[in-house]
């Protein structure tokens, strides 16, 4: 039995800054340079999340280490019982920064590496030397016992070379490799034709990658893609159908505006101006995501109850509708 949503988000992804020292080809936030909250306001955000029993706080969007008060905010959050993680490009993690990350009590750090081939990674991240810096950051964190994950965006550059990425992540001592599906939001939307895979390519990728979860040990291979249910590979422990956005998680932009996820640019309120609990429980947008109707080829598809039409962010970006079928879906009309 699945639920529409929990009493409050399990995870809040927080863009604590939109600033970044990289200009990646797929970045969802580069085109939306929202101002960031002051330290005082950011501390209030943490208080609100803790009051609502949010379990995980994940910094992302820009490069978190560009925020001078990162460790002050993290200490406050961990003191309130939140498990704090962050996604970083790794370029600013030297020995001193790694020490501070360890001491701040981060629950984990995700380092972005998109290819095991340094030149391919550097070209995708548009930053020469970025692969070496990411690998160095990963090693420094592991040397200090900081739980490490490797974060990769699957797209044209790596959809066939991902086994080498898994091998690299294992060698770096990561507990998880997150093989994120490409989202056509922000720069990703502008570069969609060069980077996104066809539905058939997505199918081929998942048909190779999903079985690796059974054959590769000592590392978790994570996908977080609702269309996995098309392969009968959905998480058997899934509490909610379809995407987790607005059901188990929310996104807070650098300026405090709240959206269902970072890839859905639809504001449902402001974390410091609106009641967080009411927003979560009563937002018409979230209600829409939690009770999607089958349209187009999803109508009559046997998988719809599990995938709920797949990724809403992709449907919205490509077709302008929450309810449109996921453009990555490879099921032909009438055959699902």
């Amino acid at each position, binding site marked *: 039995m699945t639920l529409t949503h929990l*009493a409050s988000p*399990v995870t809040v992804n927080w863009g604590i800054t939109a600033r970044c020292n990289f200009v990646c080809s797929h970045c969802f936030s580069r085109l939306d340079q929202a101002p960031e909250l002051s330290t005082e306001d950011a501390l209030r955000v943490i208080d609100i999340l803790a009051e609502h029993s949010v379990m995980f706080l994940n910094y992302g969007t820009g490069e978190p280490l560009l925020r001078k008060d990162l460790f002050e905010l993290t200490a406050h959050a961990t003191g309130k019982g939140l498990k704090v993680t962050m996604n970083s490009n790794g370029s600013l993690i030297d020995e001193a920064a790694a020490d501070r990350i360890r001491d701040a009590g981060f629950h984990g750090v995700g380092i972005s590496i998109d290819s095991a081939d340094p030149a391919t990674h550097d070209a995708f991240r548009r930053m020469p030397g970025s692969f070496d810096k990411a690998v160095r950051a990963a090693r420094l964190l592991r040397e200090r016992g900081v739980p490490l994950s490797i974060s990769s965006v699957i797209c044209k550059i790596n959809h066939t070379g991902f086994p080498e990425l898994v091998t690299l992540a294992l060698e770096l001592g990561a507990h998880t490799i997150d093989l994120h599906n490409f989202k056509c939001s922000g720069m990703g939307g502008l570069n969609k034709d060069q980077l996104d895979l066809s539905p058939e390519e997505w199918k081929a990728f998942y048909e190779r990658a999903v079985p690796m979860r059974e054959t590769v040990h000592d590392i978790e291979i*994570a996908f977080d893609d609702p269309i996995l249910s098309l392969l009968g590979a959905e998480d058997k422990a899934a509490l909610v159908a379809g995407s987790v956005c607005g059901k188990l998680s929310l996104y807070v932009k650098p300026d405090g505006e709240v959206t269902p996820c970072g890839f859905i640019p639809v504001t449902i309120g402001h974390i410091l101006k609106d009641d967080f609990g009411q927003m979560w429980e009563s937002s018409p947008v979230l209600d829409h995501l939690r009770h999607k109707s089958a349209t187009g080829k999803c109508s009559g598809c046997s998988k719809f109850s599990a995938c709920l039409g797949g990724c809403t962010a992709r449907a919205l970006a490509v077709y302008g509708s929450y309810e449109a079928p996921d453009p990555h879906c490879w099921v032909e009309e009438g055959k699902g």
Partner: protein
Amino acid sequence: MRPERNPAIVWRLEKKIYDEAWEAARNDEEDFDDKGVLTLMLKGGIHQLNLVGAEIWTRVDGQRDDAAIAAEMAELFGWEPEETVEAVRAFLEGIASRGWITLS
């Protein structure tokens, strides 16, 4: 046996639903144990426990053994003690097999 939680698990009690489940239990409603009142995460997997599971889980502290937990559960729910010991053991062995606790 003395159960201990896997320290990698992050969990929370869903307070409002917990209160609702207890209200249903006190009113002898049959579906009181259908509600997920405790959410836990391990390795990216998310799971929920019902009221009985949650009451056992919150007593797994590395101090109490299975008999002590069963005795408290029997009193809490008004169950027959011997049957409760068996049920608690079965539950603990079940979640131990999933890696949520260790049994020593």
